[in-house]
């Protein structure tokens, strides 16, 4: 089977506009969560989010393009531009046909959807002609294809908070099957909007101050926004051009809970992790670091802890498990991609990023969550979990390259 490696990374999030800033803040345990600035929160219960800061799309994109591109597609493009440049790939000629784009999103053009609906209900007689093209969830993938002239298999995946996990899994499988040599994959989300925050408030899973995963006094999740893109490449293609290799994507696991739209199930989460280990053919004892789903809701954190115990047995106590959502927030459809980058940063730097904002242990959550301070340690294999609403799960397994074991 073809081996697939990561040769480029790009991201934009509350932790900054590129991967360097992301990894620097991540390892410092710096949280990007703060008061919402994009709209008036006076009537909202939840007034915090992990927004992309100092962002003005109107200076980054030409006016003509701005009319056609939602904020989520802007993020998808910016993360992908960084990742492609980082890879050093020239995606022209035959390679443009041999490159795939698989970019996920949970909801797509949410701000376009909300502002358009508002106009209609306020009595507007017409909407901007590009409204449909702005809000479709596949717009991000289309923009990446158009901007970089990529003409291989191109589509979006959507599975709520596992959207980009499924994107990365699809890309991996197409490349293993020989349908592409390179993939631009990940996900994007820009749904820090008044309507989305209101909708999440209704579920009563939202923190009012900040995100404190696995902590006894956690108040719930904090919505974030941003995008993450990985450049996946077959090992032979990467080696032939002498590319810098960040890590090897050795396995993916996917599963469904078949249980409930909202409540997670430990068994489903455990099956995704086991499937990733089986796919890679590595034993549970090989895993050193887990970037947890870790949303900081009442339900997720004990359930995920239980699942990790079920899969890893006595080895669970030796794994560093952290939730970087404490810093970049829950970016929904972008979260698997951003957290995959966090896991790769951990492999490259040999440092486990912390779970920030941690105050006191919860008796229901008894693993090593790397509270508040990053930890230098040996990391050969890292797992990244995403367990979405609707019980759709992905686990991505990365190994250091070249591996030492």
């Amino acid at each position: 089977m073809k081996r697939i490696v990561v040769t480029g990374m790009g991201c934009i999030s509350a932790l900054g506009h590129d991967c360097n800033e992301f990894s620097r803040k991540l390892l410092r345990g710096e949280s990007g969560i703060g008061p919402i600035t994009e709209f008036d929160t006076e009537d909202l219960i939840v007034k915090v989010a992990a927004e992309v800061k100092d962002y003005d799309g109107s200076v980054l994109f030409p006016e003509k393009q701005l009319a056609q591109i939602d904020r989520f597609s802007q993020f998808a493009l910016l993360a992908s531009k960084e990742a492609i440049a980082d890879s050093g790939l020239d995606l022209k000629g035959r390679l443009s046909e041999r490159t795939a784009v698989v970019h996920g999103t949970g909801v797509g053009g949410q701000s376009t959807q909300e502002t358009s609906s508002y106009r209609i209900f306020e009595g507007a007689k017409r909407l901007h002609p590009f409204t449909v093209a702005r809000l479709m969830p596949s717009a991000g993938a289309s923009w990446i294809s158009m901007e970089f002239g990529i003409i291989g298999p191109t589509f979006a995946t959507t599975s709520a908070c596992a959207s980009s996990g499924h994107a990365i899994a699809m890309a991996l499988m197409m490349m293993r099957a020989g349908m592409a040599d390179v993939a631009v994959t990940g996900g994007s989300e820009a749904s820090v909007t008044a309507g989305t925050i209101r909708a999440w408030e209704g579920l009563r899973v939202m923190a009012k101050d900040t995100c404190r995963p696995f902590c006894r006094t956690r108040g719930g999740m904090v919505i974030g926004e941003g995008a993450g893109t990985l450049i996946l490449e077959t090992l032979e293609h990467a080696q032939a051009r002498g590319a810098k290799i960040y890590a090897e994507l050795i396995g993916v696991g996917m599963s469904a809970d078949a249980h409930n739209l909202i409540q997670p199930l430990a068994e489903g989460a455990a099956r995704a992790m086991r499937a990733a280990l089986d796919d890679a053919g590595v034993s549970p004892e090989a895993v050193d670091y887990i970037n947890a789903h870790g949303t900081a809701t009442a339900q997720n954190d004990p359930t995920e802890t239980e699942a990790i115990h079920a899969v890893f047995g006595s080895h669970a106590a030796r794994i560093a498990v952290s939730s970087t959502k404490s810093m970049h927030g829950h970016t929904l459809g972008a979260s698997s991609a951003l957290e995959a980058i966090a896991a790769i940063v951990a492999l490259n730097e040999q440092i486990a990023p912390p779970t920030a904002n941690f105050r006191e242990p919860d008796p229901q959550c008894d693993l090593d969550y790397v509270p508040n301070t990053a930890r230098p340690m040996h990391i050969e294999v890292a797992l990244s979990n995403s367990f979405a609403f609707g019980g759709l799960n992905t686990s991505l397994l990365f190994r250091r390259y070249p591996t030492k074991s």
Partner: protein
Amino acid sequence: MSEEIGNIVLDVLAKHTQIDREKVTLETRLNSVGVDSLMMVEIIFELEERFDISIPDPEFAGQQNKQFETVADVVRVVKELIEQQQTTS
């Protein structure tokens, strides 16, 4: 009014749990009739809409399940919020 509030809470609870209205009383424990955190969110939403009140969350997410133990707890909180609203408006 007070009795009416209690009756409405019992109606809402019976509707969501699909248990005979006669079988739920103020002393009924919510978890004994299958009210989990998700159903509680739906019940709270319906009560907020009916009475035009806002039922606050507990401080920590982990306390959510302990906020209301019996039907009487729900009725008491709803009454308090309605009274607060009447005195402020």
